């Protein structure tokens, strides 16, 4: 009898912890989700800005589309990610190029998957959760399959504002590859959105990429067809 109760309690607690873990991943995904924003990206080395880009980005579910508005040499370039493929539209030739998914994004410390990453919930499962107090938890995540860019990732999560604070990405060998700091959470439609991302490449010191989001909207009216290859070149 006592054993049965103990086993039932274990199952109940496991189930509850799974639900709780899933909630954290869902909250993480929600904190990043906005259907429109203006992005400014700056690449720094030794505290000197090497390049910058400005983009408009649209998102719907797991599809994202970007259009470059600055600098002048990149203006009009567009990118589309439908979570399986990545394409770039070049306005000078009206050509669409297919890009490798794991390529660095425009030479930054971010990869295409970092910026256009769609879902923690789909890509990771929580191994452990550590409570740091003051509403901060640390989530230890493991990739669900080899297709995911980083085998392990550790996320410091603010449970009160429901936004990440810091994320560390590790390779299969356990080496720290990248660290992302999330700053300046702003309230958009009742939810906080981290409006600043600072990406530090751990394998190359003194380099970082800063991304600033503004004019954020959680919902737009773009139809699904806007996020297709056909619409990208039109």
């Amino acid at each position: 009898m006592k054993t049965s109760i103990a086993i039932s309690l274990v199952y109940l607690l496991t189930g509850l912890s799974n639900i709780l873990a899933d909630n954290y991943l869902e909250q993480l995904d929600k904190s990043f989700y906005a259907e429109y924003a203006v992005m400014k990206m700056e690449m720094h080395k030794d505290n000197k800005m090497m390049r910058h880009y400005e983009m408009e980005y649209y998102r719907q579910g797991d599809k994202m589309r970007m259009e470059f508005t600055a600098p002048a040499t990149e203006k009009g370039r567009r990118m589309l990610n439908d979570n399986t493929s990545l394409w770039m539209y070049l306005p000078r030739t009206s050509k669409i190029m297919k890009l490798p998914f794991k390529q660095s994004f425009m030479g930054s410390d971010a990869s295409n998957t970092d910026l256009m990453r769609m879902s923690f919930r789909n890509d990771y499962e929580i191994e452990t959760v550590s409570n740091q107090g003051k509403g901060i938890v640390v989530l230890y995540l493991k990739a669900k399959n080899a297709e995911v860019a980083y085998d392990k990732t550790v996320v410091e999560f603010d449970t009160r504002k429901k936004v990440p604070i810091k994320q560390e990405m590790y390779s299969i060998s356990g080496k720290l590859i990248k660290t992302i700091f999330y700053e300046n959470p702003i309230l958009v439609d009742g939810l906080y959105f981290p409006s600043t991302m600072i990406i530090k490449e751990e394998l190359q010191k003194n380099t970082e990429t800063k991304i600033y989001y503004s004019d954020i909207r959680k919902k737009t009216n773009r139809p699904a067809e806007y996020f297709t290859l056909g619409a990208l070149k039109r």
Partner: protein
Amino acid sequence: MKTIKRIVISFILVLGLASNISLWSQDQSLSYQVILETKGEYNNLDRKSKINPDNWMNIGDFAALSQLYPILQFNSRSGDLATRLGVEANLRSYNFEKDSTRLLIQELYSQFTFKDKHYFVFGKKRLDWGSGMIWNPTNFFIQKDPLRTQNRLEGIFMLNYSYLFSESAISIYLFPDKKKENFKAAIKYDYSKDRIDAAVSFVEYGKYQQVGLDLSYGGNLFTFYGEGVLRNFSKSYKIDDNNILQIPDNRKKTFSSEFVVGGSVVFNMHLSFRGEYRFREDYLDKSQIRLFENQLPDNLMIWDAISVSKHTLFASFDYRDTYSRWSANLRTFYDPLSNQLIVSPLGVLTMNNFQIEASTIFYNNKLSIHNFQSTILLSCFF
């Protein structure tokens, strides 16, 4: 004919402007860009060239080309309806000579979009078909310069309707021409799912037809693509086994194929490789190349600086710095039947408002006009 042309251009402009202005109170934008390209070129000629013996073509050692591209786009959106008027002009001048200045309208079109599903285009617009980076046999209308694929090309006058599904699109094209026999029509179906893109196209050109197929696959660190056509006409000259030159219109009207296969690999964040192979069934074989060489320069119209035969190979290594500000590229073209070989290093510096390209093209074959050509191209973006 000039009057008709003026009427058509005016109609496109009025249609585009009117639709934009009528939606003025809604979401609208005007975007513009001006690009100035200035190219300086040095030609080191082969005086013993079979194509150009003693430089009878009178090619100068130095040449310059300036091109100014003003580009305008009016966009407006009101609910489910979006409109666009696109204009791109090209003002070009050779060797900075006033008499050589030409104005060309590269694009002038109105585009109407309904619910982001229905697209109507009327006017002159660039058409990009095919996944190949260097060669696109499926693109019946416009071919790139293999030695500078990023050139801004002239569009083609068209009426186009496209319907977009969630994973595919169907497009119908009409290409009117002042000569009735040059009227063309086309239909194209594009499909994209998971990592595969595919397209099937059909072009009707008077009594001639072309069927095309295009496939590409994108991996994490590589892409692979192929496109090919079957057509019952030729766009090229050929020399037959009796040493007689055949012009395109008189060539035998049997179906022949042309295809390209290629791919790219990313080794790391700096280094990548791209390769393509092209096959053209209706081009010269080895015996015909010998005939062609022996009859030069009489059969000059067959000549192509890159390749005159059925087979052409392209390979390119690209190295770029961490921030994509500069890149170094080594490109090679090789025709194994005619033994035409081109090796071209290229350096590109890209800053926020300008880009500099410096390249030298080395020609290593007897079927060449040059020993080498050196080019510097400065592009300014405003």
